[in-house]
C-alpha cells in the first residue's frame, strides 16, 4: 500500500462516529379502492444499520431498486416520514427534530445528485446557485462577500471564478455542471455529503476528474461521504468501506480492499464476477447470476437473496429462522449463514424475515 493510501486511510477518524443509523426502515404504502385502504407495502429500505466516521467515505452499492438512494434521502429528511429506526448525527436523532432545529442541521449535511442537467435551476446563475445556501443560512453579510465566497468555491472545484460566475447552467458541459453541484454542496462546509450516483451519468474521462475532485476536497476539508452508486469499481475506488445492498437490506459491509479480495456474501461474489474487467485475458463471467431481483412488495421469505443463491439451504428459505449477521473481521460483517464457517466469526445481530 502506498504512503498516499495510508495517509488517506488515516484521514478517516475511526473513533469519531459522525452518523449512526440503526434499523432504518422506509416503507411506501400501496393504496387501493374508494377509501384508499393500504393493501401492501413496498419495503424500499427494511432494517439498515451502519456508522460513518469523520473523514470517511462509506460506499453503498447495489442494483436498481435495492434501496440505496432511499437510504441517503431518508437520512437527509428528504423523504418524510421514516417508517422506523433512528439516525444519530453528531448525537442528535435526525428523525426527532423539526423546524428551526432541522434547518440548522441541514447546513451540515448536503447532497450531490446524479443528473447535473436537472439538479441545477436553469434560471439561476452559478453565483445564485452556489451562493443560495450562504444567504439562507446568513453566512455572508453582503453581496460582495457572497461573490467572493462563491469565487473561492469555484476555484476549489476547478471552474474559472471570473468567467464562469455569472453564467447559466446551460452554458456548461455535463462535467462542469457536476462541478457546480459539488461547489454548491461544499459551500456550507458540511460534515457529511451524500453523493447520490454523483458520477454515474458522466463519461469515463470526466468521471475520473470528478472522483479525483471529491477525494481531494475530502483530504482538504475532512468531511464524510455517503457515496451511493451502482458501479462497484467506482465505489470500491473512492470508499474506505463499502456496504452492499440487496432488496432493502445490507448483505455485506467490508473495508473496500477486503471486498474485492475476500467477498463473503454470495451476492457480493456474484456482483464482482459480473463486472466486465478491462483485462481481455480475464475470464468473462465465471459465475452468471440467474434470474432477476424480486419485487420488493412481496420479497421472498427468509434471506432475500435465496432464490438466486447457489448455497441456499432450507433454513435460508423460512421466515421462522432469522438470518444471522456475523462480524468475520474488524469492520467486515456479512448477513449470511455462511459467515459462521469463517474462523473467528462473531455473531453480532440478525435480520428477521419479511
Amino acid at each position, binding site marked *: 500500500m*502506498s504512503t498516499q493510501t495510508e495517509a488517506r486511510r488515516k484521514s478517516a477518524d475511526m473513533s469519531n462516529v459522525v452518523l449512526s443509523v440503526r434499523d432504518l426502515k422506509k416503507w411506501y404504502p400501496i393504496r387501493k379502492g374508494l377509501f384508499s385502504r393500504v393493501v401492501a407495502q413496498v419495503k424500499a429500505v427494511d432494517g439498515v444499520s451502519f456508522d460513518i466516521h469523520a473523514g470517511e467515505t462509506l460506499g453503498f452499492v447495489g442494483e436498481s431498486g435495492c434501496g440505496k438512494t432511499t437510504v441517503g434521502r431518508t437520512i437527509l429528511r428528504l423523504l418524510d416520514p421514516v417508517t422506523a429506526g433512528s439516525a444519530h448525527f453528531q448525537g442528535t436523532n435526525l428523525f426527532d427534530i423539526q423546524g428551526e432545529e432541522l434547518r440548522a442541521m441541514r447546513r451540515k449535511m448536503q447532497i450531490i445528485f446524479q443528473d447535473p442537467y436537472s439538479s441545477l435551476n436553469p434560471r439561476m446563475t452559478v453565483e445564485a446557485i452556489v451562493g443560495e445556501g450562504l444567504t439562507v443560512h446568513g453566512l455572508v453579510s453582503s453581496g460582495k462577500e457572497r461573490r467572493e465566497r462563491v469565487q473561492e468555491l469555484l476555484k476549489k472545484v476547478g471552474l474559472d471564478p471570473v468567467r464562469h460566475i455569472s453564467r447559466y447552467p446551460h452554458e456548461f458541459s455535463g462535467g462542469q455542471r457536476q462541478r457546480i453541484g459539488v461547489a454548491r454542496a461544499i459551500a456550507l462546509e458540511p460534515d457529511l455529503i451524500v453523493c447520490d450516483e454523483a458520477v454515474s451519468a458522466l463519461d*469515463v474521462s470526466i468521471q475520473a476528474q470528478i472522483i479525483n475532485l471529491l477525494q481531494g476536497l475530502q483530504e482538504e476539508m475532512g468531511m464524510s461521504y455517503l457515496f451511493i452508486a451502482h458501479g462497484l469499481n467506482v465505489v470500491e475506488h473512492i470508499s474506505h468501506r463499502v456496504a452492499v445492498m440487496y432488496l432493502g437490506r445490507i448483505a455485506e459491509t467490508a473495508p473496500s480492499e477486503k471486498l474485492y479480495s475476500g467477498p463473503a456474501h454470495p451476492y457480493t461474489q456474484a456482483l464482482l464476477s459480473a463486472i466486465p474487467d478491462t483485462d481481455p485475458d480475464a475470464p468473462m463471467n465465471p459465475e452468471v447470476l440467474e434470474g432477476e431481483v424480486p419485487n420488493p412488495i412481496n420479497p421472498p421469505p427468509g434471506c432475500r437473496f435465496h432464490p438466486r443463491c447457489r448455497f441456499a439451504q432450507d433454513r435460508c428459505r423460512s421466515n421462522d429462522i432469522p438470518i444471522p449477521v456475523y462480524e468475520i473481521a474488524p469492520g467486515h460483517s456479512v448477513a449470511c449463514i455462511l459467515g459462521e464457517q469463517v474462523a473467528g466469526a462473531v455473531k453480532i445481530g440478525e435480520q428477521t424475515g419479511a
Partner: protein
Amino acid sequence: MADDTPLLRLDKLSTWFRTDRGPVKAVDGVDLEVRAGESVGVVGESGSGKSVTMLSVMRLVPSPPAQHQGRVLWKGEDVFGWNARRVRKFRGRECAMIFQDPMTSLNPYLKIGLQLTESIELHLGLGHHAARGRAAEMLGRVGIAMPEQRLDDYPHQFSGGMRQRVMIAMALSCDPQLLIADEPTTALDVTIQAQILELIDAQRKAAGTGLVLITHSLGVVAGMCDRTVVMYAGRVVEEGRTEDVFASPRMPYTIGLLKSVPRLDVRETRLVPVPGTPPDPQRLPSGCPFRVRCPWAEDRCAAERPELREVQAPGAARHRIACHVDVTTTPPRHDPASFGKVNP
C-alpha cells in the same frame, strides 16, 4: 464471394448534419472492416460518433437532412446506391440492430408476438402459423420461460432485462449475417448485463454471426470482442486486436481512457483522468482533435491532421493509430495535472 472480402467495409465514411449554426460533422472519414463471424467493439465517449456511424450503415440517418460522403460496402455492394426495396432486405434479414433502450424500441401497443412475427413473415416468407412457431422458438432460445404464452403479452409485462432478450430474439430471428448492438446493456444492472452479454455471445457464436458492439464500457469490449475500434470526435483514432489495444495502447486518448477506469484488482490512490472536456463538434481544433487534451501534443499535431497509420504489433497483427507521436519511445511533454483548467 472471395474469402478476403469483408462482410462490411466503411470507406472514408462521413456524415454531416445541417444545423442552424452550420454543418456538424458527426462522422469524419471512418474506415472500418468487419469480417464474417468476427466481433468488433466500437468504444468512445458520448458524441464520438459511434452510434451515428452504425446508423448510417443501416441507412437510418435519412439524407437529407444528413449528408453522407464515402462508401459503405456490404459484401462489396455500395449500400448508398440501393433502392428502398433492397434496403428493406438488408435491414433485418442480412443485418440486424439492437438498441440501447428496449422500452422505446418496442411498440407498447402491440403484443410481442406480433412484433416478432412481422419480420419473420416478411423476410423468411413463412405463413402466420409457422412464423409464430419460429417466434416462440426464438423466445425460448433467449431464455424466456413459457414462450408460447408470452407471445400474447405486451412489452410492459416484461422487465428491462426480459425486454432486451425480446429484442435479441427479434434481431436474430431471421439469421442475419451481422448484428449491430448499440449499447445493448447500458440501461441494465450489472448482473442482468452479464446475462445479456453471455446470451449475445453464445447465440452469435452458434450461428456464426458477425457482431459490431457499440459501447462506452471498456470492460464489455475487453470481454466480448476480437477487435477494438476507439473513436474520438467522429474519427477512428485506434484500431487493433483487443488484446493489443488493451495491453499496449498506442494512441494517447486510449491510454487516457484506460487509466480513467477504476480497477477492482488494483488499489490506485488517484485516477489519471483525461484532462479537459470533449471538443464541440462545430469548433474542432485544427489538426488532431485530441491535441488540446493530449500530454504528448507537439507543434505538428496542430498543423497536420494525423491519418490512420499502421504500427508494429505482436504477431504482425494489424494495429492502426491516428497519431503523429510514438508513445513507446517518447515521454509525455506535459503533465496531465497541469491541464486541470477547463475551458468552455
